[in-house]
């Protein structure tokens, strides 16, 4: 192909070539028959101009070229992911301005051989993490917020939504851990109330990971947030599920079932939770780890869960969570390294971004991220993927010969 700017007649030539391509007789323009046909159609003057552009240097023997048609892959995905709605508006008994639906997929992530809206009716949700106490965060995250903000979960949440364009926030009540501050369930509930006032989007609330304490904390916040349909992060097999699910059910919240890397445990846990909640109030988390620090395990567990669900495994047909903030457990994300590897203020956010991207491609629906730049970049990616395919195919030939920089 010529560079488009080299020959003003290229456009005319192209339109003719295009016309031929649409007919079934010729496909490959280095073949003589193409030239014959072209000659019939073009005036002698135009021919003079165009022929050199497209005429091959030597005459190639005509070859019968059967056109091969691409056929879409013969994929059958009998399963469908359940749609889960997070948050509740006033008319639904909550106080949120909007709600989000996740799930509904009918094919693996971004397999858009059909229209995107058919196979992936809902876009993924990107949330930013906030914490109920000051914790050690990497500089590349801290630098986006003032130090004061990091002491004030409500303000932190507001900024995450308004300034950094996150869809939701995930509040982690880490201080409730008996070995940290042992914050009481009612104090924790106050923080949740404050955050619910500060933002009008649905929220996700997590505990400390201590199974006994989380049961108490989740019970209390379920009550205080009655009707808000918050997403509770998370339930696992070590918990007293009866004790925690009764209030969750009573006050109408949605849960994340956490079973790191283990599909059997995920099914087992879901079965137990089905005794209390309808399927459309359950999201699952197979765990996520950063690039260079176990990404392959979380990626593959998530992908396996999604594919199993689409192949018909009903106990796994739930939207998936990706705890992308775990990307920072990889030391390459935050360590000051040789300048060759770039400043950590760029390297860190890229680490989280690419970790999130992989989980997006594995099939995750709800993203916990901590770096304020991650949600907007991942959303941009999603927009491109769903967006109208306006791009020039011909222009791409030029990558070979375009000067960069």
């Amino acid at each position, binding site marked *: *192909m010529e560079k488009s700017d080299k020959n003003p007649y290229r456009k005319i030539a192209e339109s003719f070539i295009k016309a031929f391509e649409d007919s079934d007789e010729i496909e*490959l323009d*280095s073949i003589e028959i193409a030239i014959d046909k072209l000659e019939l159609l073009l005036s002698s003057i135009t021919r003079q101009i165009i022929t050199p552009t497209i005429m*091959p*240097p030597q005459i190639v023997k005509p*070859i019968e070229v*059967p056109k*091969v048609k691409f056929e*879409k*892959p*013969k994929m059958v995905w009998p399963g469908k992911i359940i749609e889960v709605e997070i948050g509740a508006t006033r008319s639904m008994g909550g106080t949120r301005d909007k709600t989000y639906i996740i799930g509904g997929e009918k094919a693996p992530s*971004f*397999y*858009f051989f059909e229209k995107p809206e058919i196979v992936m009716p809902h876009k993924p949700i990107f949330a930013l993490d906030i914490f109920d106490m000051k914790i050690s965060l990497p500089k590349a995250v801290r630098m986006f917020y003032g130090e004061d903000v990091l002491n004030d979960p409500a303000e932190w949440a507001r900024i995450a939504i308004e300034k950094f364009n996150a869809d939701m926030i995930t509040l982690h009540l880490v201080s409730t851990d008996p*070995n940290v501050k042992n914050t009481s369930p009612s104090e924790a509930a106050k923080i949740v109330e404050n955050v619910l006032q500060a933002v009008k989007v649905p929220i996700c609330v997590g505990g400390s*990971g*201590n199974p006994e304490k989380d049961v108490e904390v989740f019970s209390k916040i379920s009550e205080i947030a009655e009707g808000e349909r918050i997403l509770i992060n998370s339930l*696992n097999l*070590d918990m007293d599920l009866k004790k925690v699910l009764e209030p969750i059910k009573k006050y109408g919240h949605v849960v994340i079932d*956490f079973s*790191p890397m283990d599909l059997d445990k995920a099914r087992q846990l879901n079965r137990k939770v089905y005794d209390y909640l309808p399927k459309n109030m359950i999201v699952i988390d197979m765990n996520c780890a950063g*690039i*260079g*620090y176990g*990404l*392959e*395990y979380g990626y*593959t567990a998530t*992908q*396996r869960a999604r594919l199993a669900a689409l192949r018909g495994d009903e106990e796994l047909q739930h939207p998936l969570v990706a705890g992308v903030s775990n990307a920072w*457990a*990889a030391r390459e994300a935050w360590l000051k*390294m*040789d300048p*060759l*590897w*770039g400043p950590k203020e*760029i*390297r860190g956010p890229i*680490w989280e971004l*690419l970790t999130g991207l*992989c989980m997006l*491609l594995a099939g995750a629906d709800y993203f916990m991220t901590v770096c304020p730049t991650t949600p907007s970049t991942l959303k941009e*990616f999603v927009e*491109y*993927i769903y*967006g*109208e*395919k*306006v*791009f020039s195919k*011909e222009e*791409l*030939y030029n*990558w*070979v*010969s*375009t*000067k*960069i920089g």
Partner: protein
Amino acid sequence: MPWKSISPIEIYKLLPRTNCQKCGEENCMAFAAKLVNMETKLDKCTPLLEEPKYKANYEKIWSIIKPAVKEVIIKRGDISLKIGGEYVMYRHDLTYINPPPIALDVDDEMSENEIINRVKFTENFSYTYTGINLKLDMIAIRSVSEDPKKFIKTVKIVMENTKLPIMLCSLKPEIIEAGLSLLKNDRPLIYAATKSNWNEMAKLSKEYKCPLAVFSPGDMDGLLTITKNLIDSGVGDLVLDPGTFVGNGLSTTINSLVAIRWKACEEENPLYGFPTMGVPMTAWFLMDGDKLKKATWEAIAAASLIVNHVSLLVMHSIEGWVLLPITLLRRNIYTDPRKPVSVKPELKVIGNPNEWSPVFVTSNFVLTYYLVSGDIENSKIDSYLLIVDTEGYAVDVATAANKFIPDKFKEVIDESGLEKKVKHRILVIPRKAAKISGDVEDAIKWRVIVGPSDSSEIPAFVKNEWPKILEEWKSENK
């Protein structure tokens, strides 16, 4: 049919069954077992490969075990890059085989200095990860001037400055031929056959015995039509490039790669059974914005393609923050998922510890283990490393999920006889596990010290804090 496991008996029957051990295995049965597990290669059975009487059997076995995606070799001197050779659509179905090589580009309008810089950067790129050296693999030489003389000059500069394999990029056959004339004994990748030039490119590919890329951006019918014609004209080593559209069109790229691999692996359609390639560097002219943005999108495109079956990548950034996560991600995705996540819980002796040396604690997650033991070994600190069974979870996950439990500490301390090896009773646990310190201390009656959060900080810890900690313990336990 998707990949399914093959019975070793089926293979065994076709082997010479002499148990000659030339393949390095105990006997033919052991070789057959390893072969169906992809743990050895058929060529290792040299009698089968070389003796004419086994020819038919060799071919039979090959037809049973050959990959759905053809393995194509790009070569220069002693360096061979294998691309493709894949069996499965998803890594958990078996494993992915050949990590996609990454080529960095140079062009014939760059100054000699710039070319040398980029080539040296590519060749010297190295990062050690879990005992493996991560590297970049190739140089893609682009003809921007479209002048054969300039191209030749550039190819020469590259050849003089690196041993890495080469990919010659131009859509003009005469330019490719100019480059090939310098690389006669090698197998550079020719980029590319298009709908306009495929016939001449096919000739070059045959004449110089080089693999050939097929480029048909955003046009799968075209890609297949050219591929079919190339096969029919006798060119067998092909690499398919459906075009990398960064930004708008990225889903077309991803879906093309998915479709190609699906057709090859799940539908066993040989027309699609070739390695693929992607060019994330198109971000540099398809995306608007500053260099930071372009490089970020190049990284995004590269990551999207690595998890979606690409067999070879061409990139432009020489930014460490782009290439480090990409090479690590490639390693992660191409790690054999059949390998265990955990290492054995045990006491590891590092250097020559004495009875007052520190005892560090870590989880038995394989990656944690590699990092921590690597750091301590590299800093030459004589010490013990106590690997506690956390069911293969990393320290932070194990702590959050309650998998770092006192009983498991006790088990490995008892089994290893640690109490006889050191006189003190101090364990140094990672900061990320700080919250378990009280529980462990109560349960096993050792002092539990919260150490650094990352093992790279262990040398400083040993220098600045360990002596104090030890003195304190000694004075309390006289």
